[in-house]
């Protein structure tokens, strides 16, 4: 069924079946977008639930001239960023209280080779994924959002521009800088 009809049913009749249909349709999009920001799949699924709760509450304010997917992307991006900001605050408070030895050392990562046996692959891959995520999360937020929408969702420059409410040329430059920085961070982590 058309998004507009479903949205109208949710707003007018508080139709939970219609909302469930919307969630089924957008589950992959939301989970995968959140996955771009967070370290584990499980975390991404939890965030996706928050995104849909917020979507439900926000639907009456949805302007129908814009695309529903754009609206959902915005909620997903904001939820993810807020989640990470909160986590960062908690971690820094935790570190300050308990482990303030003052040596200022960051966690170091070792790139793990995938030449080993099949059984080791998942461990290796999850270590490397952690490394990748550390690097992505080091990017300034606007570069991070742009690269996640581009690489995890294959959105076009124009679509990213709509979600982020910036011009197409800024998206272009954000992505370029994001990639240059990300390459640098990936290499930095390997060298530690």
């Amino acid at each position, binding site marked *: 069924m058309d998004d507009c009809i479903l949205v109208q049913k949710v707003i007018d009749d508080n139709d939970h079946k219609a909302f469930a249909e919307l969630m089924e349709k957008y589950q992959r999009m939301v*989970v995968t977008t959140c996955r771009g920001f967070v370290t584990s799949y499980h975390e991404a699924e939890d965030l996706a639930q928050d995104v849909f709760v917020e979507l439900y509450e926000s639907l009456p304010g949805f302007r129908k001239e814009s695309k529903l997917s754009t609206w959902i992307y915005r909620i997903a991006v904001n939820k993810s960023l807020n989640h990470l900001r909160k986590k960062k605050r908690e971690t820094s408070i935790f570190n300050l209280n308990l482990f303030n030895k003052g040596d200022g050392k960051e966690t170091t990562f070792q790139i793990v080779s995938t030449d080993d046996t099949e059984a080791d692959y998942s461990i290796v891959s999850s270590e490397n994924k952690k490394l990748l995520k550390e690097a992505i999360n080091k990017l300034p937020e606007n570069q991070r959002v742009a690269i996640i929408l581009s690489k995890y969702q294959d959105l076009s420059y124009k679509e990213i521009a709509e979600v982020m409410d910036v011009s197409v040329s800024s998206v272009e430059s954000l992505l370029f800088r994001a990639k240059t920085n990300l*390459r640098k961070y990936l290499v930095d982590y390997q060298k530690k």
Partner: protein
Amino acid sequence: MNCKDTNKFMLQFLDGELSAEKTSEIKEHLMDCSDCSTELNKVKQLYGLIEEEKNEFSHNPYLSSKVLNRIKDDKEQESILLRPIRYALIASLSTAAVFVGIVMGSFLSNINSSIAQSDSDESIELLADEYFPTSSNNIYDIQIDETENNK
């Protein structure tokens, strides 16, 4: 093409976003420079994990019902928990305001009591708004921390 530029544009190279000219220059450099091609392989391995994470998705048949339960729970909590609190708060504020009104009234005998009453009504609204802010309207704009370097 030198090592520095080859490294700098590695991800753009992997994504096929460079001009044909630059691309062939980098390719040429990679054939001659083993350092850069080793580097490229490492970066490619990590960058390629994005594709893997993208494909982790598996449809969760319970996600929708979990969300619907939360929506119902929120509604119930709103009616069971929040409303009485809201009313209790407003009630106690009104009581306080009426009390203040009476005290003030007894001191300032020449102030019109109806004005005093409408003043305190306003302050109740203000206070209640502070405790239960009407949902802010900017939450659906992306809120990005613009700092370039947030180390």
